[in-house]
């Protein structure tokens, strides 16, 4: 690979630095999403995700109540703040207060006067002593305090996304859409690409030009007429309909990619096979297809990712009942619609939906390496 960047060390380093910067730039949002998906919504609004691994400071409000012990100078109430109601999750106490106007006005360890008489001391470890002239009433003394909250991660988001109503169905629906919508165009495109690359027939150039032209047509243009056509011929909104739609939208790119790859295969191999007695179909299945595997794999990845992430085509061509929802629709309409502010859920849903594409990419990417032709022709 070093030959690509050139032989100058300085240039090599510039390339490396640029690559590193790009990788970091791409990775930061993904990591943020991943971290956020493990935090609950209060944490997410309390502190940014890059502070998640560190303890955060949070203010609590509670009341001190309980049985006080009568002493010579009044009633003494001792205890631990952590045992008080609504103090869950608090760690080391940093400050406290007794009035709403200054909830954290007094540093931990100091003593303050209470408005109704008496004193209160709160220590950093949470223990406190309250000395009052009269026995505290059942309502108790209001107390505000600031405490460090240790970092907390939770899988609750994943539980609520994965076990949400209909999520499993949506997952299966997505596969039902993507797998045929990936395989059908590849099958058709491979045949078409072979014919356009290696078979002589009148109008071949025009067809290729037409396919290249179709590459630039936005698919939104076809949504309404295509849906009307589906309704007219009785397919309506159904899985068959979306397979056909994805196939049609994917074919121009598929044919274009595969034709260019196949046209680049050595002519001698194909002619050799012809002389050896192979028919066009045998040349296609035994020679062209195995040699085109890298191109087939790369198009499969493209098409799979595109159909997996697609929301628009799924919304148009699938029935609108929730039984037929795909993942993207489930996330967009259900999770986002009802819980739009719940960033933890959103981050988790995003992660769940990219898990399969990432797995597909890593499984297939080794086939993208083009080295299969080595040794066939000099």
């Amino acid at each position, binding site marked *: 690979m070093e030959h690509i960047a050139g032989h100058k060390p300085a240039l090599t380093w510039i390339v490396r630095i640029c690559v590193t910067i790009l990788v970091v730039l791409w990775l930061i949002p993904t990591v943020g999403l991943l971290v956020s998906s493990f935090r609950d919504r209060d944490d997410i609004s309390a502190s940014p995700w890059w502070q998640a691994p560190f303890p955060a400071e949070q203010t609590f409000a509670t009341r001190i109540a309980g049985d006080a012990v009568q002493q010579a100078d009044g009633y003494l109430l001792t205890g631990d703040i952590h045992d008080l109601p609504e103090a869950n999750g608090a760690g080391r106490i940093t400050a406290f207060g007794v009035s709403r106007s200054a909830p954290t006005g007094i540093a931990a360890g100091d003593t303050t006067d209470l408005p109704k008489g008496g004193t209160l001391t709160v220590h950093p470890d949470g223990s406190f002593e309250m000395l009052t002239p009269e026995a505290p009433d059942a309502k108790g003394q209001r107390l505000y305090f600031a405490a460090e909250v240790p970092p907390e991660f939770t899988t609750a988001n994943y539980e609520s996304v994965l076990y949400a109503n209909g999520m499993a169905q949506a997952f299966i629906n997505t596969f039902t859409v993507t797998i045929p919508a990936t395989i059908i165009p590849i099958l058709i495109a491979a045949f078409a690409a072979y014919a356009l690359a290696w078979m002589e027939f009148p109008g071949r150039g025009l067809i290729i030009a037409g396919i290249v032209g179709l590459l630039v047509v936005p698919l939104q243009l076809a949504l309404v007429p295509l849906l009307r056509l589906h309704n007219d011929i009785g397919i309506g909104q159904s899985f068959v309909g979306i397979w056909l739609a994805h196939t049609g939208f994917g074919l121009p790119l598929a044919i274009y990619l595969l034709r260019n790859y196949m046209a680049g295969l*050595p002519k*001698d*191999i194909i*002619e*050799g*096979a*012809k*002389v*050896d*007695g*192979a*028919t066009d179909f*045998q040349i296609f299945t035994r*020679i062209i297809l*195995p*040699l085109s595997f890298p191109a087939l794999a790369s198009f499969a990845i493209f098409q799979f990712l595109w159909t997996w992430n697609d929301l628009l085509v799924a919304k148009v061509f699938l029935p609108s009942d929730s039984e037929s929802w795909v993942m993207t629709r489930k996330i967009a309409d259900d999770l986002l619609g009802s819980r739009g502010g719940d960033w933890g859920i959103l981050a988790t849903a995003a992660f769940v939906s990219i898990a399969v594409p990432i797995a597909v990419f890593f499984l297939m990417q080794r086939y993208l390496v083009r080295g*299969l*032709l*080595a*040794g*066939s*022709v*000099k």
Partner: protein
Amino acid sequence: MAQVKIDNVIKRYGSLQVMHGVNVDINDGEFVVLVGPSGCGKSTLLRMLAGLEEISDGTISIGKRVVNNVPPKERDIAMVFQSYALYPHKTVYDNIGFPLKMAKRPQDEIDQKVRGAADILDLTKYLKRYPKELSGGQRQRVAMGRAIVRDPQVFLFDEPLSNLDAKLRVTMRVEIKELHQRLGTTIVYVTHDQIEAMTMADKIVVMRDGRVEQIGAPLDLYDNPANVFVAGFIGSPSMNFIHGTIVTEGGLRQFRSDSGLMLPLPHTSVPDGTKVTYGIRPEHISIADHGVPLRVVVVEPTGSETQVFAKHGSDFIDAMVKDRFKAAPNAEVHFAIDPANVHLFDRVSEQRL
């Protein structure tokens, strides 16, 4: 095995005609080499024989059958490509067996023939390997193996040795010739290398610009070239050509070059005053005490022979002498020319006189 007849074949690409009525007769079991400079149409002719290229006019027959519109696989031919054209995803065994598999032969017959071919070509050790794991010469042999398992009527070779290094080329040349002697199948072989043509062929077809210039046995072409092109193309180093006129001086018919050099003539009926091109091969010139006086330009010793470039006025003559010879540049040297080895060509038509 079969004879091949190429009869008045014409090839046009649109309005551009590239093959102008080619006629070649190839006898059963003959080793025919099509030779010519690049662009002369030799590969196109071979591809038309294979059926990979359509012919615009004329007929091609293999055996007694006209094959103009017969697809390649039904012509009963096998072709070896310059680039080997091996199937990179198949092992050597599967590469060699592919034509038989296409012909739907039984498995045991395929196995027997593949092993037989591998044995002939010394490939038995490599049957499990893939093409990328083989050297150039081995790949070339696999390509030949794929051709011989079919036991075709005609073998077609399209510059099979051009991708090999010089040493391997000599070895493979011998192997192909040996293979021909063993199998006795008709072979049509295309090359641009006249040494390959001379050493391997029973019959050479010299082509230029889509026309056949001469057909004949190698030594026939060497001794009696039909025109200046064939004379210059066959033989290495190539023949000397000097422009001049035939004159009679002092009762002796002689050749006088445009720059005044006098050279001996064979017995010829060409009248005096005819403008001719005088051809003499470098190996037919020797150094003598008396003879044609020239000035040495460069001397190149090659060990077995010495090549001497000399000139007179604007005429250059290149001699290949057997003796060790040393001379300073610009020294005078005398070349002896045997009139029996002189070729005379018409200046305008360039045809042999």
